[in-house]
């Protein structure tokens, strides 16, 4: 079977696995699995901004907050999730465009601090504007989406609803990164001066990288709201942004499936280590340090590294092929 044939088969297998995963489990496990999917969406967005386009952002949780609060406020006012969620995403897209402007002037650590400041700003607005956001008490009792024939009130249907949204979000992102836009994002990451000289409008593509990445965080927030049915500013602080960044880095920045792996490590691994009682966070932290030290390109690259080590394929570069045959 060729590599091309293997990939759809593997994806189908993983999808079936995701469908079967919650069966036979209690509400808490299903809740954790749903959280994994939601954070995968947020990490997918950051992976576009950081992994593909090379623009650091420490504000992903604040966009989740904008998506979550927009959805919460609208659904509490009687709007359907199908209307509230896109509104939240569009709002995040627009705010992401605005946040992208500093990225046109500052890079690297300085940009990280700009986005960090934005995260703090959003937190303070959510905490202080209690007439709209409920302040420190937050908002509660948001309804879950009801599609008449398919209600998501219970944990399992909501998991499948989230899975469907995740699959659609992943397919859309796959389309973006495979399109000429995706090539321009990578060019921006690798050599912005050269990209600009080839006609790539690096200003526009930088803003789009922020805006699309932010819209994905908005979608994740729109799902968090009905999942938890209670949100407060503390749920979207800097530590949450750092967690999403960790998901992207641990999973494999710039790899399409990296966010899923990274979110699994950050969300699922601590739960799997709970049997160690009070030590689980210590073990989890130690494992993350080891992973970052030994697989700095992310876990998604482990398969390739293992294959190269134990089943190396002696493939020569095109112009060296004849030389390689002389061995």
């Amino acid at each position, binding site marked *: 079977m060729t590599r091309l044939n293997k990939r759809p088969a593997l994806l189908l297998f993983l999808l079936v696995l995701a469908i079967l995963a919650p069966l036979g489990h209690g509400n808490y496990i299903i809740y954790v699995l749903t959280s994994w999917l939601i954070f995968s969406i947020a990490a997918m967005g950051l992976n576009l901004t950081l992994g593909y386009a090379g623009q650091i952002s420490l504000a992903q949780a604040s966009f989740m907050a904008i998506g979550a609060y927009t959805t919460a406020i609208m659904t509490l006012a009687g709007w359907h999730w199908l209307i509230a969620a896109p509104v939240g995403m569009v709002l995040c897209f627009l705010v992401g465009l605005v946040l992208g402007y500093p990225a046109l002037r500052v890079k690297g650590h300085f940009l990280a601090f700009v986005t960090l400041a934005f995260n703090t700003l959003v937190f303070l607005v959510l905490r202080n504007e209690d007439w709209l956001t409920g302040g420190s008490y937050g908002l509660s009792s948001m309804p879950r989406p009801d599609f008449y024939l398919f209600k998501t009130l219970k944990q399992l249907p909501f998991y499948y609803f989230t899975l469907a949204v995740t699959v659609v979000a992943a397919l859309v992102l796959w389309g*973006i990164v*495979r*399109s*000429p*836009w995706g*090539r*321009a994002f*990578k*060019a921006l990451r*690798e*050599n912005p*001066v*050269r*990209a*600009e*000289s*080839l*006609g*790539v*409008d*690096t200003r*526009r593509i930088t803003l789009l990288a922020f805006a699309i990445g932010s819209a994905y965080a908005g979608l994740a927030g729109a799902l968090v709201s009905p999942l938890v049915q209670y949100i407060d500013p503390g749920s979207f602080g800097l530590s949450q942004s750092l967690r999403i960044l960790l998901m992207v880095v641990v999973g494999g920045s710039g790899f399409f499936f990296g966010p899923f792996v990274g979110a699994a490590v950050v969300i699922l691994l601590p739960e799997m280590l709970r049997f160690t009682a009070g030590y689980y966070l210590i073990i989890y932290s130690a494992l993350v340090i080891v992973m970052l030290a030994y697989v700095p390109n992310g876990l998604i690259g482990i398969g390739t590294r293992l294959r190269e080590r134990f089943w190396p394929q002696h493939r020569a*570069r*095109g*112009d060296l*092929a004849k030389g390689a045959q002389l061995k």
Partner: protein
Amino acid sequence: MTAPALSVRNISKTFGTIRAVNDVSFDVRTGEILGLIGPNGSGKSTLFNCILGQLPPDGGAVHVAGQQVSGSRACDLSKLGVGRTFQQLSVFPQMSVLDNVILAGQEHHGSMLSRLFGKPDAGLTADAEKMISFFRLEHLRDELAGSLSYGQQKLLDAAMAFMAGPGLVLLDEPAGGVNLTMLAHLKERLQTYNAEHGTTFVVIEHNMEFVMSLCSRIIVLAEGAIIAEGTPDEIRSNQQVIDAYLGG
């Protein structure tokens, strides 16, 4: 009378107290291959960067095919048909050779939205393969650009500069660090492209043999100003040029 492919008028650039480029003016005719030479620190690269909008000049104007382009962004210049190569290696190392060349052409086709919803290769694979073959890199089509040798990356850089079919290409030290075999190949490809497409070249180069055999006219810069202009033979025998290079 048609406008020159490139017209540079009274360009000056100062860094602190150092005048890097001092009131430089010249024209480049359509289809011409012009060499721009000078000792290190003579202001060649600064002049290039002022022409290409990567440094704002203190004064003066640049016209491409009669159109004022002073202050234009590099991406806008590219869309006006101005290509360039860089002194340093300037390919996208984590992308394949084919993707590098497609990228170089994609922004010149369709709109922003059509590039999102259209074909992943923007319908440019065949054209990109032709350009890759033109520079005889077809056996490396699917390799990562970063895995190519220095000379091959220089060729790829040139292929990328030509992909959008520019009318004017500015080449910044294309021969730098390239071995003799690859150099002869690069020169032959540039000459062929110039003959086939009538593309105008401006070449900054330190390799005298390369520039003398490639260019039909040469401008010599020293201390930010033009000190000589003429055919390769005239430049070879110009005492002011010899003095500038030998420090006389």
